[in-house]
């Protein structure tokens, strides 16, 4: 049996946006999108890190309006599909219509893993606009494989074209991934995808586990640029998949060069696993909280680790960046120590 084609979904210009504090410029977006198109990415995702209309005090303002980046990328993308991420509760159908008009043809609609029903109207709207629609379940480590199937079926019924599981906290180990992807794959008739964060150093291993259980869409970023310790490193993923005999349609040397020559010079820091990002993966905390936590720790004179462990304990979900301030304030009143640690 020949191995299925693996679609590479590059999200350097979306999840990677967190790592550069949403500062991508039109020139950078043009160069990255054009490079990704040439090397064979199936989908190139561009949005504020928290999805379209994510530019805000809570998540950080985009230096350049994401619509300008999408417009610029659309000019240079010839073969890949141009995608966006939308988180209902942050972005609206009106925002989706605007980016559709600018050339986006894939809408990945993301909710917390247990809240898929808030996205039904957005999935339907994307389909009505002729877009490919993806149901994207964030923080999927927080739900059982059975619960994930139940939630994915809500997306399927709304018309989704594939379901993407996201290990947004970089918490899962390969067996966690296998259990979720295999049950999902066997329970629905549409393709499954996977998105990971490298907080525990497992993003390549987890992506391979997902592929071996039947996932055919894998998220990755050049140099691993992304929230927390970053995402699955695209050029490494392509090399490993190639060695394992999977067809990604990617030009391996091309993606290596793009990562080294175009993306690396843009990076504000090397994408390595420092204590903060390790703590995200260890405590199960949403990866985009990291840089906001560093900021709050400095302002309130705390150890970032204490804030992160409390965020995990309180089971905060994606989008609750404001609670970092609340927790920092509360900890600072207690004298800066998390007594239960």
């Amino acid at each position, binding site marked *: 049996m020949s191995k299925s084609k693996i679609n590479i979904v590059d999200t350097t210009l979306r999840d990677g946006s967190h790592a550069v504090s949403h500062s991508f410029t039109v020139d950078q977006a043009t160069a990255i999108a054009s490079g990704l198109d040439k090397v064979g990415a199936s989908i190139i995702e561009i949005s504020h890190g928290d999805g379209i209309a994510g530019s805000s005090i809570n998540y950080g303002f985009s230096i350049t309006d994401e619509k300008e980046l999408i417009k610029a990328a659309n000019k240079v993308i010839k073969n890949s599909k141009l995608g966006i991420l939308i988180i209902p*509760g942050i972005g609206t159908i009106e925002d989706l219509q605007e980016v559709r008009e600018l050339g986006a043809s894939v809408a990945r609609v993301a909710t917390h893993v247990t809240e898929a029903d808030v996205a039904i109207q957005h999935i339907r709207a994307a389909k009505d606009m002729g877009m490919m629609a993806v149901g994207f379940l964030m923080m999927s480590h927080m739900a059982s494989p059975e619960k994930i199937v139940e939630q994915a079926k809500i997306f399927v019924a709304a018309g989704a074209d594939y379901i993407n599981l996201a290990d947004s906290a970089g918490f899962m180990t390969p067996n966690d991934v296998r259990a979720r992807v295999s049950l999902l794959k066997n329970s629905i008739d549409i393709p499954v995808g996977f998105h990971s964060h490298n907080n525990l150093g497992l993003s390549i291993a987890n992506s391979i586990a997902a592929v071996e259980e039947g996932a055919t869409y894998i998220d990755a970023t050049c140099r691993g640029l992304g929230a927390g310790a970053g995402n699955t490193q695209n050029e490494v993923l392509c090399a490993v998949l190639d060695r394992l005999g999977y067809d990604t349609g990617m030009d391996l040397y091309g993606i290596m060069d793009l990562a080294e020559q175009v993306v690396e010079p843009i990076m504000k820091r090397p994408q390595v696993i420092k204590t903060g990002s390790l703590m995200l993966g260890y405590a199960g905390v949403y990866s985009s909280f990291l840089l906001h936590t560093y900021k709050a720790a400095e302002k309130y004179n705390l150890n970032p680790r204490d804030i992160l462990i409390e965020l995990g304990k309180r089971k905060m979900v994606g989008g*609750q960046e404001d609670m970092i301030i609340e927790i920092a304030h509360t900890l600072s009143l207690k004298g800066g120590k998390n007594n239960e640690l």
Partner: protein
Amino acid sequence: MKKIKVAIIGPGNIGTDLMYKIMRSKYLQMYLMTGIIESEGIRRAAGLGFKTATNSVQAILDDPEVQIVFDATSAKAHTMHAPLLKAAGKIVVDMTPAAVGPYVVPCVNLDEFSHVDNFNMVTCGGQATIPIAYAINSVANSEYTEIISALSSKSAGPGTRANIDEFTQTTSEALVVVGGADRAKAIIVLNPAEPPVMMTNTIYSIVKNPDEKKIVEAVNKIVKEVQEYVPGYQLRVPPTIDGNKVTVILQVEGSGDFLPKYSGNLDIINAAAVAVAEKVAYNLLKEGK
């Protein structure tokens, strides 16, 4: 003492909690609960001795005793009910995002609307955050206000879930119209943690005059005013000023009338609606109607 007779359309969670709140009112008399089927909410109202009906708005139109109506159905249904109720001379408190009438937040703009016959209650997040946004703007001049409302998943009903864009759009519009900011953005997050989390709201505002003393005074004053109708309304992070940015975080604990305490989001919009109706009833009684 004479009271004003009240009807509720929509015997769901909101309608039932409203009923319990109205039962405690000095000026309002719970009188009629109407829905479209013989539901649990209808049976509960009947069990408490109130008139019930299953022909929706018609039961109210047929009953001249009813003076104030709470519409706890949906935006679509309210758009149909509103002209009928108006023609029948009823005063309406609209719990849906239909926005037929002006947005009202009791401690901010209720006194401006003495002759309005349809009050729109914005959203739960609006009722929780607009008082603070208004207080900040009144002393500091807000260029941009942004709010994040986090609700427990259990307290977000099917109506909210199916129309989540209505929440963000209506709330951000009301932050400008009622809260006074030049521009605004609203974000909603649902958190499924067990035990359920209390409703938490963050208000950020970029202001022209970041005078800390004045901002703190204005916020503390309005918190006390909201506490008069929502006792569980309290600051988690007091006004914190960082350059020209103001941050306030507050929590809303429900009163537990019918809904659990974590449903502060439902409690605050209902408590605000009853405060509006009481003011209307007080005026009607004063005028001898």
